[in-house]
């Protein structure tokens, strides 16, 4: 019997050995993360290396905030992709829209999670909520909390609306867990509402695009308004963040689509043409990221740079941080150039590997962006150090594992494209 190469809902029903093994690994990682969280919450932030302040020139922000910026960026990139596809009604990319929709929510959730972890104590979480009406008037951090909340509400609403539309339009045979989801999202639904739902999905797509390119810059801007640290303050931080976010969002989609096509051979929903489109987007945003990075770095490595800014630039380009900085640049630049030279026709596997390199490159740069200004403060002759503790590593890598766990679980719950009818293979 030849293998099916069109999209089927079988991914909701079948549970392979590999899937179970992955689930067990991710659940074990989640339990390990929980143990680290218990340790941090009980002992306080002393469990991290983020306790040095002031003249000691240590980092008070580290892996948590760096990875928050990475997740928040991916969320912005993924929601921009969802918004673009839904607003322009690009049916050929409907599976990419669904995947990016799911990822936008998970990445937003992971970003919010890491902010809560970085705050350290439960009391601070509740203070943010209860004082929001006052802090939103003057605190960029409160704007950021508002943006991340809006992002999650909008992406989840898009998921609900687009699923409602798919379920109302067709009635395939669904497994029990998806049938329950269908009941929840189709409350009061009638076939007559299809034209209106299509229009609402389109307008929500535009809303997501507007969200990505307005409030989406706030996680970057909130560093740009910190005047006390050289390296943070500046007018370009929002753009730098957005450029990285769009790139990582597209890279995440390339990787996810590549892995799914390798596993399920969906040549209709994830066609060669779709992959060329994703490759084109990866190349474009790769160059945008590199150009923005060049503009960000160049002024601080000239001889005319202010002393404290110049010190950061020197550490980054030729000093103690140079190996990590150049690694982060190469991990983005090499795949971007190769994609451009070979016109995104390197195959699904190679494109997926490039996506991993880009995700890693931007993640390293996100850590540097957060840590550099703290290690080189406005104090001559003082240079700090930062070595993340085991607790920080476990919680940070655990956040990635939990994000993957949520996605893997979503694959068993959410149809990835619209099907009118379903015939089991």
């Amino acid at each position, binding site marked *: 019997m030849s293998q099916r190469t069109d999209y089927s809902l079988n991914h909701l029903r079948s549970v392979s050995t590999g899937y179970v093994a992955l689930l067990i690994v991710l659940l074990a990682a989640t339990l390990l993360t929980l143990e680290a*969280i*218990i340790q941090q*919450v*009980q002992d306080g932030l002393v469990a991290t290396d983020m306790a040095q302040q002031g003249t000691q020139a240590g980092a008070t922000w580290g892996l948590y905030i760096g990875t928050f910026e990475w997740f928040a960026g991916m969320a912005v990139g993924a929601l921009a992709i969802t918004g673009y596809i839904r607003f322009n009604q690009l049916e050929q990319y409907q599976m990419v829209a669904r995947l990016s929709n799911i990822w936008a929510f998970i990445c937003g959730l992971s970003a*919010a999670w890491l902010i*809560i972890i970085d705050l350290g*104590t*439960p*009391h601070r*979480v*509740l203070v943010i*909520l209860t004082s929001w009406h006052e802090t*939103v*008037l*003057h*605190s960029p951090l*409160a*704007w950021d909390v*508002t*943006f991340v*909340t*809006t992002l*999650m*509400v*909008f992406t*989840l*609403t898009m998921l*609900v*609306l687009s699923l409602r539309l798919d379920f109302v339009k067709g009635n395939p045979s669904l497994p029990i867990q998806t049938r329950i989801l269908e009941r929840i*999202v189709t*409350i*009061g639904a009638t076939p007559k*509402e299809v*034209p*209106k*739902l299509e*229009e*609402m999905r*389109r*307008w*929500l797509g*535009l*809303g*997501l695009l*507007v*969200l990505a390119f*307005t*409030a989406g810059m*706030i996680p970057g801007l909130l560093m740009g308004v910190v005047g006390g640290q050289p390296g943070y303050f500046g007018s370009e931080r929002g753009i730098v963040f957005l450029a990285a976010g769009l790139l990582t969002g597209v890279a995440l989609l390339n990787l996810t689509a590549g892995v799914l096509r390798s596993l399920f051979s969906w040549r209709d929903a994830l066609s060669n043409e779709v992959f060329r489109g994703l490759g084109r987007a990866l190349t474009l945003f790769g160059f945008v990221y590199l150009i923005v990075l060049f503009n960000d770095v160049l002024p601080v490595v000239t001889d005319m740079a202010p002393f404290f800014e110049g010190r950061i630039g020197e550490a980054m380009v030729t000093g103690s941080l140079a190996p990590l900085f150049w690694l982060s640049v190469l991990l983005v630049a090499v795949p971007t150039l190769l994609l451009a030279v070979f016109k995104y026709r390197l195959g699904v596997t190679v494109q997926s590997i490039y996506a991993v390199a880009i995700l890693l490159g931007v993640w390293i740069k996100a850590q540097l962006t957060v840590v550099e200004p703290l290690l080189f403060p406005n104090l001559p002759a003082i240079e700090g150090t930062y070595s993340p503790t085991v607790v920080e590593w476990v919680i940070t890598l655990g956040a990635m594992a939990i994000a993957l766990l949520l996605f893997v679980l979503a694959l068993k719950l959410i149809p990835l494209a619209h099907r009118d009818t379903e015939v089991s293979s």
Partner: protein
Amino acid sequence: MVLSSLGIVVLLLIILMPVYVTFGGWLFSEPRDFRTAGIGLVYMGVIAVAMIGATAGLGVAFWVIANLPL
């Protein structure tokens, strides 16, 4: 510009802009169907309340973890 009025501008003009675009489109685009648009608004409202409630719940969960006899 005083920071408090800047905050109001950022909130009302920037952060909430996607809300205006979406709600405006839902309510006034063709075909006009206030019932379906209303259902969409209710879903979004429920999700927003659930999201904020879950954050508060997480704060409480952290408080419990902080006081576990471990």
